[in-house]
Structures are given as structure tokens and as C-alpha cells.
């Protein structure tokens, strides 16, 4: 079980959190024209890197804040966590 540092609450065990996907994906702006391909990339296509991966987590059984985590997909090492408006 991972130990994740919530930027608001500090270190807690993984079972307090839920995973929220790739944090490098940005939702296209509302009401803006977008090609089928770009929309497909937003909805479906994800990289599957071995190594560093920035991702969203939700402190669902805690402060209920979404935040960012930089984690190694190979070793589970967590390099950094940050609030949504901070750089990882």
C-alpha cells in the first residue's frame, strides 16, 4: 500500500485516496471547435510510460481535495505531490 502525501493533510495510506488518471491531460475549452482526433486523444488515448508519471489523486476519505502526484510506474516511488495550481 502506497503512502501518499496529501498537500493539505500530510502523509496518509493509499486506502484514503482514489486514483484520478493522467494529470498531463487537459480538458479542451468548452464551446471551442476541436477535431475528432484531438477529442479522441482527450477521451481515450493515454501514454503508458515506464517511469515518471504525473497523475491526479483525490483524497476521497480525507479533505476531498484533488491534487497531483509524480510517481514512478515501475517502482511506485513518489517523487513529489502538489496542489492543483502548483507545478509538479
Amino acid at each position, binding site marked *: 500500500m502506497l*503512502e501518499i502525501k496529501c498537500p493539505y493533510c500530510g502523509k496518509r495510506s493509499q486506502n484514503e485516496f482514489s486514483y484520478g488518471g493522467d494529470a498531463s491531460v487537459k480538458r479542451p475549452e468548452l464551446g471551442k471547435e476541436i477535431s475528432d482526433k484531438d477529442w479522441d486523444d482527450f477521451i481515450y488515448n493515454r501514454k503508458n510510460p515506464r517511469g515518471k508519471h504525473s497523475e491526479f489523486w483525490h483524497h476521497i476519505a480525507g479533505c476531498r481535495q484533488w491534487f497531483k502526484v509524480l510517481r514512478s510506474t515501475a517502482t511506485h516511488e513518489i517523487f513529489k505531490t502538489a496542489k492543483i*495550481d502548483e507545478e509538479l
Partner: protein
Amino acid sequence: MSQNFRLDKGGYINRNKKISFKFNGKKYFGYQGDTLASALLANGVHLIGRSFKYHRPRGFLGVSVEEPNGQVQLYSGATTEPNAVATTVELVEGLVAKSQNCFPSVSFDFGAINNLLHKFFPAGFYYKTFMWPKSFWYKIYEPIIRKAAGLGIAPLKPDPDRYEHKFEYCDILVVGSGPSGLASALAAAKNGASVILAEDKPRFGGSLLTDEVTIGNKKGKDWADETIMELKSMPNVIVKNRSQVFGYYDHNMMVMIERTKDHIENPDKFTPRQKLWYIRAKEVVVSTGSIERPLVFGNNDRPGIILASAAKEYMKVYGTLVGKKPIIFTNNDSGYDTAIIFKKNGIDPLVLDVRLKSESSVVKEAKDLGIKIRFSYGVVNAEGYKKVNSALIGKLNTEKTGYENLEKVSCDCICVSGNWTPTVHLSSQSGNKLKFNEKVNAFVPNQPKQNESTIGSANGSFTLKKSLEEGFDKGFNLSKKITGKDSKISTPTSNEKNYEQQDKFWCMPLPKNKSYKRCVDFQNDVYVTDIELAIREGFRSIEHVKRYTTLGMATDQGRTSNLNGLQLVSNIEKKIIPEVGHTTFRPPYTPVTIGAIVGREVGKHYRPTRKSPIHAWHEKNNAVFVDAGLWLRPRYYKQGNENLIEAAKREASNVRGNIGVCDVTSLGKIDIKGKDSAEFLNRVYTNAWMKLPVGKARYGVMLREDGIVFDDGTTTRISENHFHMTTTTAQAVNVLSHLEYYLQVVWPDLDVNVLSTTEQWAGAALAGPNSRNLLEKLFPNMDVSNESIPFMGFKEGDLSGVPARIFRISFSGELAYEINVESGYGMFMWEKIMEQGKEMNIEPYGTEALSTLRIEMGHVAGSEIDGRVIPSDLSLDGMLSKKKDFIGKRSLNRKAFIEPEREKIVGVVPLDKKTMIPEGSHLVADSNASLPNPKLGHISASCWSVEYNNPFSLAILINGKKRKGEKLYALSPLKNKVIPVEIVSSHYVDPKGERVRS
């Protein structure tokens, strides 16, 4: 029976407390402090079970968790425990154990015929023989093999014991209380670190319990006892015995099982049987010691053949003799210790040493005591079927490929010493890639991948001096890193025997024309010939050899067999061991009871139960409950002998014709506040929200970004910047996370806050033509006219002094109101409703009637919103705003979503107007078509329409909208039904929606 093999004195058992127990139906005695194994051996019982595959007689090889053979079934009934390792079972009064894997008894076993048929049962036998025909595998072969090869028998009744979970944090977790573990725990604790010291055995001290050494000026055991006393007295230290750390997980999460009950004679009623500890440690010190390996020779798995270190521990700790005429067979100096202890207890051992000579002090001591030693000698074959009674011994030629002479000597046990294997399982689990250490001829940990340090003999440091140094150093340095403190205690001096290098020779050759079976993996019954065969058949990777032969795959995780197996492969392949590599160790290190993993989350405690504040009333009024997510909701209120359908019909009819009341507390409720709330809803829902007036509710549909319908519900504008959202019971939690995601991650500029208020409000739905009359009685000072509270209107009212919210919304399709009060007043509200509604013959209705009402109205719910439908599939096209963008909108023009023949929602009526259509039935055009019959759609929900008094169902059907009037068939192979049906509109009752507006 008397304990003929018990020494007159010695050991750490309590000879004042005699304990009786039963093994295979026979009564025996032992002492407090014994294990089942030490007590059986004290009674001269060696035959403990039969081997897994060939049913060969087996006895104890080890003294602790390394034991591969001594698995027994404990007790009977609900508390029976299979595969208990007798060397780790502490003796308690009344213990009952029996042998496993034998029929009818351990001494006379039919399965032993497999042994005679060994030629036909080589490695990979199952894979080769039972391949064909395929259907035979699970019908015939597999059940028979299971019956023949199974280990113990699992209990058939629920486990009556109680298991607990515990979470703990510490600076340093030390696993193992041998000299290095004690030293590191002491050094770390003295330097201010919080320490947990875990020992899997009942007694602390590890090798200090059996080795004749001194630390400081004390005997090793006394130093261990005093160190434990000191650690126990420190507030920053937790000391635990009977506690096995069995798993090393990510981010230094360690899992430990503590045995808290089975060893106690009269435990308190609520004593948990075991405690599972989740320990998050900043640093982990692995000081798990090492395990002796057996030597391999003909019939080396006979009862009476035992590890020399185990024989030593039986004498030193339990005062138990494994035999009175021992042969010590060794390739290194440590075996001599066992010989010396036998001699000191008045028994003459014969030492066979495969080496040419050894001049170390321990060998000299043995010589001085007059112990007979033969160098260049070894055991060739053990004889005696159920217990070894003699050995064929031989003098090895110089190349050690054959024998110069052979002779037979009588004996009653053979103590084998094939050198030591560091216990690296936890280090390996932590991600540490092991390296081969030539000097100790075994794998040791390499670079740590987590905050893990392995010390002592687990790290290949086999002298006491080195173990203590590593312990004190590691304990101090790790604690300094954490606490920043600098108080160091000096390493005490120590005195020990000197053991020289071992011989790497470990597998005795076969004499000419002999084909003795030589066992490598005792628990999984793998022999030298099996590994030779696997390699001959082309298996090269050690992982493949392991799986083909099952070497090291048993519950003992190959503790006594892995290294020997690797050495064998390396010999045959002419590769050095590091090139052969090793297999991966995975948790758990020792088997763990399922009950301990589950803990208290069993039966109804498996998950929380949520009850509405009106629950007690429902119970009192014969409600039959149903699980709705975590909630318990009344399904129907039983009257007399009526069944579910009859009750649902009665309750639903009363709503259609009169008035009913339903507890809707479980609906998800989310409070939304902030000046951008309307804008936010406008983005989240598919329809328009900007112009919703204060005091009005609106129905909304939410999509996922991929266009699939996510949830639906009504949301009410309480004031300009304050909304009250409702969700389905099932999706309440997910909707809140979804809203939080968009507010925090995607549109943080919006000024909106969301909060779950599901628990804050109790809800009651009044439904039926009489509901306005009742509302008027409940709120006599309020104007309840259609003009004052129109359909989708909202008002705040005063329910006999309790503030209430009144929403005119309807799931039933009738004139209906939903009243919400603070949950604490839920029962008050409900009782008021029942009291005031009595003269109108109000009746409560449950979820079954609720479903009936919504189905015949064509209102969609979870069975239609199944994660596969888009709005138009549910005839919700009108809910999609063309003027604005919203979550998921861009996906709706995907090719598959604008396909004209998509499945759409329809109504379905059986032609005979009698037969209920089972939910999940498939709709097909031709009921006799050849299989697989092309599926046109499926029935999502069924009810008995109270409006038309015939069955009615909703279905999702290909090209459904164009099929109205078509005749199809509903097939339910599960219920064995073929029902001719007609397709109708999904809005079966009141298609224009006049009633809700009346």
C-alpha cells in the same frame, strides 16, 4: 505413554506443567513450552504424514517455519485448521491433531502405491497425461487428482474466531530477535527512535537460545533475556513475540501476524485469535537469520532424518532427543555442535564428514570428547520404511563421483548439515535484487530498493561478532538519521566457536546399478530425477524448471530446497549459480489464515449498513428490506400471506388511486452554493440552467465526457446562488467526486462549493391523487394550490414547528410531493404523515412498488442507465441543449452514436397479458432460429402494470422506435421461457404527463 526421548533435564520447557494431547486418536503427554513436534518426538513419534505426490512416509525435518513435512490438521468442526505446521504449533491442554494426505491411516496408506508407480509419475506428468480429451480435465482427471493429492481439509462452517486489525507507525521495525536484531533494536531505541521488535517464535533470542557463546561477561541467552527486559521497559519500544512479519509491501508497509490465542489454555471469551498488524516503518531492519539446508542422498526423506540444527534445538530448547543412535552427516563445521551436545547428554554419535579433514576448534573439541569422526564419508542411502533404522555409508573417492567402499551401520536418526541459507525472503519482497555470495555459497541481499537493511546471518554474516557489530552499527546509524540524536552504545565483546569454511559438495552420487530416490523438495515431492528430466526436456530458465517440477512452490516457499535445486541445475548445466539465477519470493512468507486477512469485516460487517431515521418504523410495520447500495430500504410492507408481487401491486395501486408514502431518504443530495452555481450546473447537465427561477426544480441528465449517461435527478434553486441537487442512491458518491473534479481541476475559476447533504435530510414522497389534500392538512397555513406550488415548484414550510422543504416532483408519474426535514426529525415527519393520512387510507410503499410505478411510466433508472447508453437511446434527446456546450457533448456526434439503428428504449407487453417477462431476457425475431440466436435487445426492467393489470417491461431494443407494434420473442434460457411479446411505447401510462401537472 511415557516420554522416552525426553532428557532428564535441560531445555526451556516447564516440567512442572504436564499437558495431554491427542495425535491420530492416541493420547500423549508433553510439557508446557513444547511444540506439537517437540512433544511428539519426546514420545518417539517420527511418522507424521505422507508426502504430497507419492505418499511416502515423512517425519520432521526441521524445528520451526522451515519444516516442509510436518503439516497436520488441528481439531475438528468449525475450528479445524488444515496444514498447521506442527513445529510451530504450541502445545496446549486438549490439543487434537491428525495426519493429512493419507487414507485410511498414516501407517497404512493406499496412496503409497503412487510411490511404486513413480516411473509413471515423473515431473510434468499431469501436463502430459491429462491433456486429452480436453473435457476430461475438469470432469474426471482434476477431481480425482485433487482428492488424491490434497493437503488438509478446509472447514465447512464459518470461522467462529475473532480476528483484529491494527495499524501502527514506527521509526524502525526490526524483524527477528537474534543477536543482530536485538543489537539493532537496542542501539536504535537508546538513540531515541521508536522501535518495534518482532519475533515469530514464542521465545526471543534466535541462535542465542542454542549456541554456547558469551556476550560481554554473560551467557548469550542471559544477554538476550536482559536485552529484551530492557527493551520492554522503554516507552518508545514495542516488543512482540509470536509475531511473523510475512509481507514487505510498497513504501515500507509491513504486514505482521500476531498469534494471540491458540497458545492460551483458557482464553477470555473475546480474545482475538490473531491480530494482523499493518506497520508503516521509516526503516526496516531484516535480521531474519538463516536456515540449514539438508544434504541429498538415497531416501533422504525417511522419518528420522532431520536437520542437525533442528536436532540441536530440540535438545537445547525442549530437552527432546530426536534419536539415541545418531549419525551426524555434514559438509561443514556447524554439524559438529550437534554431535557435541549429543555426547554431552551421554549419547555417542557417529560423525560422517564429506571433507578430507577439518582442523577448526569445534572439530578438535569433538575429537577431544572422543566422538567418532569419519572424513571423506557420507550417507549413501537411508533404510527403514516408516523410520530410519540403518544407513548405507560410503567412503567417497577423491573426485567424489563414486565410492571406495560401502558398509551398513545401524542408527535411529540421521542429522544432516548442508550449510546455511540466509533467509532473504523479506529483502527480496522489498525489491532488493539478490546477489550470489561465493563465500557463503548462497544468495544475499544486494542494493536496497526501499528503506531496508539486512543484517546478521540473513546478510551472510555468520559469526556472532560480525552480527553484533552490524546490529549495533545499523541501529545507531538508522536512528541517527531519523532522530538526529547521537547517543551511541558500544558493542560488547563476544566469544564464540570458530567455524571454518564448508565443502560445497552436497549431493551424494548413486552407487553403480542403484536408483535410490533422492529428495530435493520435501513438501512438493520433487526428486533429483525430476529436475534432471526437466532439463533433459529443454527447460532452461529456473522459473520454468520451478513451474514444471513445482520445485519450491509449496507453502514452505522452498526454504530447505531452493538452493539445493539451484545447485543441481548449475551442476547439470555446468553453469555457475549466479547464471542460473533464482526465483522470486512473494508474500506471504508463511501461510496466513483467511480470517486474519478479513479481520472484523465479516458477515453483515463486510460493509457499513446505512439506515434511514425512519428505519425503526419500517421494521415495526413488517417491512421486508432490500440492499440499495449500502442502504437498507423497505422493498414492501408485508400484509398477511401476500408475496412480493402481490404486495407491490397493492401498494402501487393505492398510489395510482389514492395516496402512498415512500421513504426516499437514501437519495443522494448535494448542496451547491456560490455565485457561479447556475453556470456550473449548465456545464454539468445537458439541459439549460441559467434561467431556472428561484423556487423551481428541474430534471437534469449528466453525461461522462465520452457521452455515456452518468446520472440523473432533479435540482432545485433554493435562492439565487444556492441549489439543492439530488442524485440516484447508487451514484451519489461518484457524482460528488465528479463535481469536485471539475470544480478543483478543470474550472477552478468558478465560484462554487459543493457538499454532500445526503445524511442531513430525511425525505418522504407523498404520491397519488390525494396527496395535495394530505399536504394541506400537514401544512395548514400554506397555500398548496396548483398555482402556488405548480409541478416542479418548491416551497419552505412549517411542519408542526419543524422547518420543512416541499418539492413538487414525481417519480411515480402521479401528483406527488417530496418533503424533506432535518434527519433528526425524520421519524417525526413520517409519523405526522401517517397520522394525518390515516383517514385517507394512506399506505407506505416500498422500492418494488416504486419500481412498478416508474416502469409503467417509462421513467429510466439504474437498470437502463447501465453505463452503455447515450441520451437518445433513452428518448432523452429533448434534454440536450443545442445552444450551449456541456460535459460529454462533443462525444455525442461520434459515428457510433449517430448510427440510426442504435438500441432504443421501448415498452414490451406479453401477448398473453399474463406471463411476467424475466429481467435480462433477450429479444429475438425468431424463437426457433439456430443458436446463437441473433439478439435484438434485452429486457431491462419488469413489473405488473397496475394501470392495465397485465405485465409490462422496459427494454433496450435495436432500432426500437421503429418497431412499435412488432411481434418478437423474449427468451430466458435461465428461466426456460419463450414469451411472444409486442413492442409498445415506453410511456405506457399517461404518455402526455397530465397527472403530474394536475
